[in-house]
């Protein structure tokens, strides 16, 4: 029982990361019907930006703040500033790579390939710029381990899970209850008719990228807090898996991204816990494959005529 509870917590934390990244895929897909394969690497960029912002606040560079801040304030500032800066990266990517293609009316396949290339560009650009050596994310929040009757929980684990849940509530509200959210849904419904109604499509798209990238940044900083070793390729594999999670949940649906993310987290942790861990990916992806063949649109997805 203790082992089960412990693994439940492990799975919740691990699934939270998948969910936070899957969200970015789903948001962009929901609006543009574009699979933004650079998203995993935006997550990596977020973690790196977080690293530099945190190091700056900790006074590790020549230029630093005149006053010393308490660590929890630094953590909060790091989080917010990283989200802002990473949004800039995400929006730049949209401006430089995706928008020109969209303007020229390129088929969606080309935009997806562009996205893949952008991801590789970010990875290798980072490698060229910062080198291959690993970086250690500073410990901003003093780690506390609580022992609840044989089940160990850290404050970071709790923070990650709560953050994921808050993000879920926040995004659901934005997409379902605000005008901007309504515009987002409208664009995905009919991109030709929406501009005729006077809705500024480009602004809405930029807003979508801001939302997706800042959630990836949030995920990146939390990930780096929980697993404090940074490397340029850290976003690749987890990005792919989060994409699978988004598809399982029904891509384009925020509920789906969360459901898919947590499901993938649960399957991975529990397979590793009760079977030889070598079989983890084999078993977890077989389960997902069977699931998809039964329900090709995922949990919440609706069948559409065109998909790529």
């Amino acid at each position, binding site marked *: 029982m*203790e*082992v089960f509870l*412990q*693994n439940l917590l*492990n799975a919740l*934390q*691990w699934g939270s990361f998948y969910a936070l990244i899957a969200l970015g895929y789903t948001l962009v897909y929901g609006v543009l019907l574009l699979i933004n394969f650079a998203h995993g690497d935006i997550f990596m960029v977020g973690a790196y930006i977080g690293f530099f912002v945190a190091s700056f606040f900790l006074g590790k560079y020549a230029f630093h703040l005149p006053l010393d801040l308490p660590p929890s304030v630094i953590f909060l500032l790091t989080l917010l500033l990283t989200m802002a800066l990473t949004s800039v990266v995400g929006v730049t990517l949209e401006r430089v790579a995706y928008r020109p293609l969209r303007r020229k009316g390129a088929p969606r396949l080309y935009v997806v390939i562009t996205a893949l290339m952008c991801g590789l560009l970010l990875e290798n650009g980072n*490698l060229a710029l910062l*080198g*291959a*050596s*690993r970086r*250690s994310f500073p*410990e901003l929040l003093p*780690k506390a*381990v609580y*022992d609840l009757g044989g089940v*160990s929980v*850290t404050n*970071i*684990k709790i923070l990650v899970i709560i953050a994921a849940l808050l993000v879920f509530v926040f995004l659901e509200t934005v997409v379902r209850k605000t005008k901007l959210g309504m515009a987002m849904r409208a664009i995905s419904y009919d991109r030709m008719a929406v501009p005729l109604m006077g809705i500024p499509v480009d602004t809405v798209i930029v807003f979508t990228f801001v939302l997706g990238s800042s959630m990836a940044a949030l995920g990146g900083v939390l990930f780096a807090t929980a*697993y*404090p*070793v940074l*490397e340029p*390729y*850290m976003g690749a*594999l*987890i990005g792919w898996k989060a994409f699978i999670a988004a598809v399982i949940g029904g891509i384009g649906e925020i509920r789906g991204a969360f459901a898919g993310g947590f499901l993938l987290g649960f399957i*991975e*942790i*529990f397979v*590793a*816990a009760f079977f*030889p*861990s*070598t079989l*983890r*990916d084999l078993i977890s992806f077989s389960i997902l494959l069977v699931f998809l063949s039964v329900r090709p649109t995922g949990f919440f997805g609706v069948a559409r005529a065109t998909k790529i």
Partner: protein
Amino acid sequence: MSRKRSVLSVLSLLVALSFVSVGSAADTLKIGFNIPLTGDIPKVGEGSKFAAEMLKEEVNGAGGLKVGDKTYQLEFIYEDNESKAESATAAALKLITQDQVLAIIGPQASKQAIPAGEVCDSYMTPMISPWSTNPQTTKDRPYVFRACFLDPFQGPVAAKFVSEEFGAKKAAVLYDIASDYPKGLAEYFKEAFEKIHGPGSVVAFETFTTKDRDFSAQLTNIIKSGADVLFTPQYYDEVPLIVKQAHELGWNKPIMGSDSWGSAELMTLCGDDCKGLFFSTHYAAAGAKGATKEFIEKYKAKYGYVPDDVAALTWDATRLLLQAIQETGGLTGNLDKDREMVKDALAKVKDFDGITGKMTFTPEGDPIKCAVIVKISDQGEFEFYKSVCP
């Protein structure tokens, strides 16, 4: 017309230049380095390169290497194997056929050294892996050597040490099943530990695959198994994550590692969590004497940090190679013949006095030397704790 002439003159200049370079090549010795400058363990590649550069400067600064009655300048060619098996074979091939090196140092990790050894052996080029501890690297390959001890020796050393030092009766192992080195070592440890404490005494034998970042499920199993010690023969970029997550899940018993821990980068990544842990390795920087101390001080003055074991072993491997080249008593200039002579000279090396210990080679191309148990001190230094000889 004038254009044609200028093309001609450029061509003739090129021809002349290539003759010049062939002419001077006779007096340089080309040695290839097949090392991971990028990829999973770039620090390993950096340390290897720095140590080699230092040695090259020393030898060339003293006028060059005297072989027989001729003096050669050293030329080192560094090829990046990206810490991947397939790139390591490609790098070896390039060094052998394109760069025409006399011999190759590296690759460092067994994952790359095993396939690269195959290439070097079939192209009859001597290769010394400074750091690869897996037996397969040199097995049945007369041209392949190494400068470190082997996993079948290191596994029992770790098993014996945890039994004696911590009184461990039950052990847990966590390792990367997709990598040759951890997998081999984990199995040797298990075998040795079960020989001491009986079958079933390794109560948890958990695995993961390269690039994994979350080990919570495996560690939960390990904690539940009631093991007295955790053995994890992983590389320095995974160790901090494993150790931190183990502590977060409530593990407060000892954790034992292997020589792959001994990177200069481990402590910057791991911090307080790794203090007080032990690992078996080739040399300990803190408390070194003689030539070892000299090497450490020189390296530190030049590059700003204490060299790790890879740097020390690369230094030894390269010196070993240079000594073997000298012992051939003079090179012929025929590359195939020279490579064979170097191989024969390497196989005959006895009591080579390296900075990581004395080495004598077995017919397999493996040295007989001692292992060191290192304790990570509260200052984060790798301190000599105990020496274990075969």
